[in-house]
Structures are given as structure tokens and as C-alpha cells.
């Protein structure tokens, strides 16, 4: 069971309540909620906010691939996964990503949650532009995208 979405922050905010509703089931005994938030410091600079940019369709495709790999690579068959990522300008403390997973047991829930965020970092085309106190802004360098070759 998978839910994925890119949320334009002008329309709504990411919600842990919605994530909980989606993954909640008596089939699962372990749930993990991960959220990423905008913090006030990076590389010794005072950050006041971040603009997130996204290639929406390619991001959703990458989320689906990561979900399917959980079967093949991690052998976790029974699971519910909720992934939402924000797009647009976020203030300090606002939530940029929610990953909620539910599995039968805690071991696989921890592994799965960590696997998803690390893979998103490697291969989901999302970019951050940091805004600083002196009215400057910079796109973060990032890493070249990793992808499965066709």
C-alpha cells in the first residue's frame, strides 16, 4: 500500500495526521514517522527559509520504484508507506517531507524508513534554495542523480 504526493505549499501543509490515517491498520505492529523540517543553520550560515523545487512526475516515479524495491532488495512484502514532499517556500521549522511506514515488526519498519529517505536523497529530483538573513539565496550543490539505467 503506497501513497505519494508532491504538495505545493501554497495549497496546503504536510500533515502527520493524514500519514497516520493512511498507514494505520491492525495488520501492522510497528509504525515509524519521519519528518524533515527546515533548520536555521547550514554551512555556518543563518538560514531563514528554503525554497523546494521538484520535477514532480519523476519524483513520484522514483518514490514508486523505491517502494517496489523494498520487496526485492529488503524482502519486506507487507507494508504501508506514505511519502509526501513539499514544494515552494518553507519557513524555519516547517515540514518538508513526511515518510510514514507500517510493517509487521519494528526491525523491518526501522530499516524501511531509513532506506526510503536515503534513496530519496540519492535519486529523487528535488532541489533546495536556501535563503539567508542578508537577503541572499543559494541553490545547494547536491549530488548528480543516481538512476536505474534502462
Amino acid at each position: 500500500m503506497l501513497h505519494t504526493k508532491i504538495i505545493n505549499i501554497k495549497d496546503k501543509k504536510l500533515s502527520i495526521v493524514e500519514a497516520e490515517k493512511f498507514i494505520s491498520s491492525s495488520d501492522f505492529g510497528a509504525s515509524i514517522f519521519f519528518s524533515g523540517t527546515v533548520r536555521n543553520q547550514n554551512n555556518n550560515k543563518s538560514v531563514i527559509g528554503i525554497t523546494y523545487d521538484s520535477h514532480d512526475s519523476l519524483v513520484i516515479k522514483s518514490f514508486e520504484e523505491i517502494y517496489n524495491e523494498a520487496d526485492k532488495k529488503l524482502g519486506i512484502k507487507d507494508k504501508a508507506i506514505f511519502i509526501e514532499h513539499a514544494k515552494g517556500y518553507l519557513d524555519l521549522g516547517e515540514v518538508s517531507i513526511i515518510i510514514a511506514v507500517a510493517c509487521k515488526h519494528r526491525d523491518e519498519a526501522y530499516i524501511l524508513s531509513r532506506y526510503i529517505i536515503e534513496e530519496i536523497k540519492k535519486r529523487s529530483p528535488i532541489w533546495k534554495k536556501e535563503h539567508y538573513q542578508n537577503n541572499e539565496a543559494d541553490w545547494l550543490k547536491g549530488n548528480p542523480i543516481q538512476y536505474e539505467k534502462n
Partner: protein
Amino acid sequence: MEKPRWASRISKRTILVIINLMKVIIELFGASRDFSDQNSLELDIENGSSIKDVRNKILDYLDINFKGNENFIKIVNSSAFCSNDNIISDNYKITNNEKIAIIPPIGGG
């Protein structure tokens, strides 16, 4: 009035050059958004051009418009390209009016 012979030669060549060109639309994402005020670049490329040629064409564009801004050049050289939600290789052949996306180095979460 009859055209001089050189004029007819030039016009034929010009027509050939025009026929030989096609358009590609480059959708901009992340750091490459600084390449333009628009969300995309529209470039003229030769028929049969590959992603490798498009990459060079973007570098030419940056040279003209941003005096070869080194940071921008690095972005182009480290970017991937995407068509129809697939990452494509440098040998991928572009078709006329194809929309492709430039995917600079990523880092969400």
C-alpha cells in the same frame, strides 16, 4: 529582373540550413532556473542532434548570455537530462520540438 548566379546559390544553401534545423525545449529545474527568467529555454539545434550536442548548445547560450559563468558551466556539465520521465543518455537523439528537462545535481528531503 534576373537574379545574379551567386544570389541563387546562397538562397539554396540558406534553405538547406533552415531545413536542417529543429527546436528543442529545455525545461529548467533547481539551480538551472537561474539560466533564464522563463521556466524553459528554446534552442535551435541541427537535425539528428544528441543530448551531448544539446549540452554544448546550452554552454554556447551561457557563454553569450552570462559570459561563461563558471558556476553555470559546472551545473550543465554535472546535469542529467530527462525525457518522458526517463533519464536519457548523452547519445539519445532528440526529435523536433521535443521537451526535455535538465536535472542538475539533486538534494531533497
